[in-house]
């Protein structure tokens, strides 16, 4: 047993060394920077203590950005996980041409952020875009999407669902590992398709769902590229990272932006810890 314990440390060591070499110093620097008025290009940086943090909590834009991001996350995360999981289950079956389907559903995830945003600008175009064009077949007059403050959030949710295929790689490899014997005995007990999925597939997949949940929380709160490119009417597209980016690179308030980053870090960490603690209640381990 002793031999077993110490061996693990050696396996993990490369990451620890890499962390110390490449990540720790910049992170410590980032802590210090958040207590200064560093402007990136200026030479006269001053220590200002908690002034950045104080300014943040009084900034209406901060609360607005936090709200926009939180509201998006709360809806998008479960939406994407359910979509991704459902599609993965469908694509794990041996239906004809399933290989092509898998590639097609995964394709949205391989395109870089800027290209996706440009394409969606067209899709969501109120007059000539794909969505309103299809809605007009059903006789519906589509909304102005990104040009209408009420429809900005739904626009971003649509983009999130379109990219939901990105998760299928994580599910597919594990779905096949579910022993068929479990399904067979369930069938003998008279279970139907839905019951088999709900009582066997889902519990066996909970580790992967857990992974996607954590990753989903992190990426929803750090959402940036499409929001930066597309924006949204009435300030409804000002996600937290867009606000941070502007403070850092348009106003050269890097100290302030770094403080914003640490606040976001704490928010994400808090949510992750909650999910991690809940792990023992719903994640099935081998």
């Amino acid at each position, binding site marked *: 047993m002793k031999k077993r*314990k*110490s061996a*693990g440390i050696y*396996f*993990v060591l*490369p*990451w620890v060394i*890499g*962390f110390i070499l*490449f*990540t720790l*110093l*910049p*992170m410590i620097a980032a802590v210090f*920077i958040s207590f200064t008025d560093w402007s*990136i290009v200026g030479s006269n940086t001053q220590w200002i203590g908690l002034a950045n943090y104080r300014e943040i909590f009084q900034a209406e834009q901060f609360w607005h950005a936090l709200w926009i991001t939180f509201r998006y996350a709360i809806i998008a995360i479960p939406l994407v996980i359910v979509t991704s999981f459902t*599609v993965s289950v*469908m694509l*794990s*079956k041996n*239906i004809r041409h399933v*290989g092509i*389907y*898998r*590639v097609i*559903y*995964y*394709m949205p995830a391989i*395109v*870089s*952020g*800027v290209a996706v945003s440009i*394409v*969606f600008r*067209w*899709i969501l*175009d109120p007059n*000539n875009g*794909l969505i309103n064009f299809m809605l007009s077949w059903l006789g519906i007059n589509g909304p102005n999407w990104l040009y209408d403050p009420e429809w900005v959030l739904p626009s971003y949710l649509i983009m999130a669902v*379109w990219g939901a295929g990105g998760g299928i*790689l994580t599910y*597919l*490899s*594990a779905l*096949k*590992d579910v022993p068929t014997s479990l399904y067979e005995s369930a069938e003998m007990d008279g279970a139907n*398709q839905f019951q088999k999925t709900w009582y066997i597939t889902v519990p066996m997949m909970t580790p*992967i769902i857990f*992974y996607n949940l954590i*990753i989903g929380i992190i990426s929803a709160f*750090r959402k940036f590229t499409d929001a930066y490119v597309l924006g949204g009417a009435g300030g409804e597209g000002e996600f937290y990272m867009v606000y*941070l*980016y502007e403070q850092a690179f348009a106003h050269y308030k*890097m100290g302030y932006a770094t403080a914003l*980053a*640490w606040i976001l*870090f704490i928010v*994400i960490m808090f949510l*992750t810890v909650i999910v991690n603690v809940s792990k023992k209640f719903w994640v099935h381990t*081998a």
Partner: protein
Amino acid sequence: MTTSHTNQNNHPLKRFILHKSTWIHIALILGSVIMILPFIWMISTSLKTESEIINPQMVFFPQGFHIANYVRAFQIIPIFRYMGNTVLIAVLKIFGEVFVSAAVAYGFARFQFKGKNVIFMVLLATMMLPYEVTMIPTFIIWSFLGLTDNYTPLILPAYFGSASFIFFLKMYFETFPKDYEESALIDGATHFQIFTKIFIPLAKPALITIGLWAFMGTWNDLLGQLIYINDPNKYTIQLGLASFNSLSGEILWGPLMAASFIALIPIIAILLYAQKYFVEGVKMSGIKG
């Protein structure tokens, strides 16, 4: 009685509708169309003439197949050279990233040691801090070491593992039964041998997934490459695509879409080739004894 019942359900059309895989197919096809339409628009724009692109009445399909945009794209940037540069970086990175991440994940998943949970939380934490604020301090460090305008800052860190890959592989390795290694250990194998000879082959689908992500990450990483590369000869494909924009000029949509499409082809090809590996199940029964 039974004969008429069978007759009704034997009608081909009814069987087609009642069979559940029909509905799955229909749903999948509808979804596929939605997934793929933006790409079709990208390709169709790349084949349009300039007046068709500018035309505010957004036409979906071009009149003819206007390949001048592709010719133009190659004139503006050396697409193949940039793709070659990117492949070079990607291959050098993937090798380190995949195997080191697997080793680290193995350490987290199959062992207990003091401080393991703390170290893992730190690993998760590194994924939560926006890189925009550590980007410049990191650059200053590399700059101090004289390694700018260089691929090294992009490649070297990969050899120490990548947090999100480690996280994923840890989950994957944890799905194997707890005493999987027991028999091999009794036979006198070292942990490293168990890792390379048993777990790596078992994790093939997951490793191929990680490899694909690593490749895509490099292929699509605009900001990192922008910060560390100055010399246009060293440009990657993303920097090449960015060359079609201009703050004080017009965006050349036609050639941009053409180049973007060309840039997508390698990834789609790899994806098509690799997708069958994602679903290789593990034959659990063969390992006992």
